[in-house]
């Protein structure tokens, strides 16, 4: 995550048109060597198109893509130093597992025995030792994925491109593969570029994430910064759950904004907690994550600087967590609209799940708020 690593992929003003459709609108992006980078966004945001232009399956309409400081316009897909793990895995059904993994080694000058050893190593690396002679169509989804990984990594590409590689797996398998992919990436040290629509997956796996909407990068940040300080309300909405309350700006001095929030009262927010609103939002909005505020019992003490009274409207029990929908006292003061906020509490030992209708106190800190204006 250090900035001194050399750039591996550079996109400079990349545009892509499909007829009238403007799929990529000026992508500027630098992905550093050895980085686990994610392109995150809803379907149709251009993330897969961007990946495919890097792989060379799509031409770009304008701009430049450099891989390892070399311009890629004239380089066809089969000559690029990238390999891809396809969403459907694209395992060749007419070949065995070993033949699939060895597919890209045809022009490798090494001998047969040496190549066979390479294939064995690659299969062992993805946990498929001894699967070489299996027919590819007899594999499960997770195994196919591993074959696709081995097939790409055996060629030692400079960049491994992963197009929604985990979306076809069930939840348990997906979580397991996420961890394995991170380990694998650290082990081989290759730059990974992952395309995903799953924000959780991006947060878990990536060093840095580019959030894309409508062919543009909305925010490029590390997972924590992205989650804690979304650059726009749209990013905040896309990543995780965020509560939104209307705010009234009272004043601004040296970038620090003072705002009045119904239910929470006046707050002072330094510049780093102030982000852009969506153009179509109605006025400034305060946002906060469900886990940044804490329910406190009548006799409990807390160390948060602020506290607000509220009524519990709804309780959703998840086992490890409980979600509470709260009505903040005074939240409807501004325009009469009731705005329930969602708070999550971890069900640690000794903490009882509260009941609907209970009056409670909510402890919080202005440091956890983000203002979108």
């Amino acid at each position, binding site marked *: 995550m250090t900035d001194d690593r050399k750039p591996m992929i550079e996109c400079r003003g990349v545009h892509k048109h499909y007829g009238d459709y403007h799929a990529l609108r000026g992508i500027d992006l630098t992905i550093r060597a050895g980085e686990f980078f994610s392109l995150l966004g809803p379907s149709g945001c251009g993330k897969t198109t961007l990946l495919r232009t890097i792989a060379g399956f799509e031409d770009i309409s304008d701009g430049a893509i450099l891989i390892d400081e070399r311009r890629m316009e004239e380089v066809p897909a*089969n000559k690029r130093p990238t390999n*891809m793990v*396809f*969403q459907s895995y694209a395992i060749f059904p007419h070949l065995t597992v070993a033949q699939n993994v060895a*597919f890209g080694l045809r022009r490798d000058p090494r001998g047969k025995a040496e190549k066979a050893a390479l294939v064995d190593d690659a299969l062992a690396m993805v946990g498929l030792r001894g699967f070489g002679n299996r027919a590819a*169509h007899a594999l499960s989804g997770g195994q196919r994925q591993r074959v696709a990984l081995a097939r*790409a990594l055996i060629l030692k590409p400079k960049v491994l491109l992963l197009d929604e590689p985990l979306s076809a797996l069930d939840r348990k398998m997906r979580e397991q593969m996420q961890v394995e992919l991170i380990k694998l990436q650290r082990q081989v040290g290759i730059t990974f570029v992952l395309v995903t629509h799953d924000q959780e997956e991006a947060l878990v796996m990536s060093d840095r994430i580019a959030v894309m909407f409508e062919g543009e990068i909305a925010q490029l940040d590390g997972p924590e910064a992205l989650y804690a300080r979304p650059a726009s309300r749209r990013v905040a909405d896309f990543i995780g759950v965020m509560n939104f309350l209307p705010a009234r700006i009272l004043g601004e001095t040296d970038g620090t904004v003072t705002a009045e929030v119904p239910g929470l009262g006046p707050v002072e927010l330094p510049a780093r907690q102030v982000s852009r609103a969506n153009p179509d939002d109605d006025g400034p909005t305060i946002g906060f994550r469900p886990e940044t505020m804490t329910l406190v019992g009548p006799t409990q003490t807390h160390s948060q600087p602020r506290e607000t009274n509220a009524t519990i409207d709804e309780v959703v029990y998840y086992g490890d967590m409980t979600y509470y929908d709260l009505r903040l006292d005074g939240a409807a003061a501004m325009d009469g609209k009731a705005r329930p906020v969602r708070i999550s509490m971890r069900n640690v030992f000794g903490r009882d799940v509260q009941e609907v209708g209970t009056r409670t106190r909510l402890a919080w800190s202005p440091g956890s708020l983000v203002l979108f204006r």
Partner: protein
Amino acid sequence: MAKGLDAQARQGYALIAPPFLYALLILAAPLLTILAYSFMTDGYLEVVRDFTLTNYVQVWTDPIVRTVMLRSLMVSALVTLVTVLLAFPVAYYVSFLVRPERKSLWLFLITIPFWTSYLIRVFLWKVILGYNGVINSTLTGLGIIDEPLTFILYNVNSIVITLAHAYAPFAILPIFVALEKIDRALLEAGRDLGESRAMTFWRVTLPLAMPGVLAAVLIVFIPTIGDYVTPELIGGGKIPMIANLIQVQMLALDNRPLGAALAVTAMAIVALVSIVFLLINRRFLKVRS
């Protein structure tokens, strides 16, 4: 569970019983009759029910039969080769290069030759290839040749041309279906793993299209070997194929036992060739899940 399956099986059998009986009557009964005939003795204007192997001995020793049989095999092999080689690019074009919404239009166009009878199409080829036909009169009219070409009618070439045209759709469609089933990501994967377009075609597209190619081979080979009309009309009756020989024995010479023995022999040879192709095809089919 077993009881339920039994009921289901009974229902299934009941459903297929009528067509099965029909097929038995229409298909199996004539076949068995032919098989029975082939072991009987030819009498004057009748078939004598004396068991004999003479017909087969005659069929298998007659040099004319051997020549015609080999010619039939050669012609249909040639027709199959030409048809499949020409059909593949067409199928490839429709599957890979035609826009999806246009594909059904293309398939529709490919079936246009079927709108008219096979006999008429064969006659048309005669008109095109004949001594004073379209090709010859055009070429002489343009002064390219002085005398009409004679190698394009009443010989094996013309039979191959005619049959290859007639069976082209039968070859295009199975190959098209096989190509359509190929996941396009596989071709990108081939490119991604460092292969050129040509090598990707060779290592990915072609092996995956093989079931369709082999199906096309069978679909063209089996009917052409028994084709009767084209050698009769285009070949001018001078280069008979096995079906013409059977016709002569069965009708002109009224030797039905010998004709039956010829038919059974031809059928056995076709069956043998088909089994070989089916065995090859199994190799390609088993990889599909």
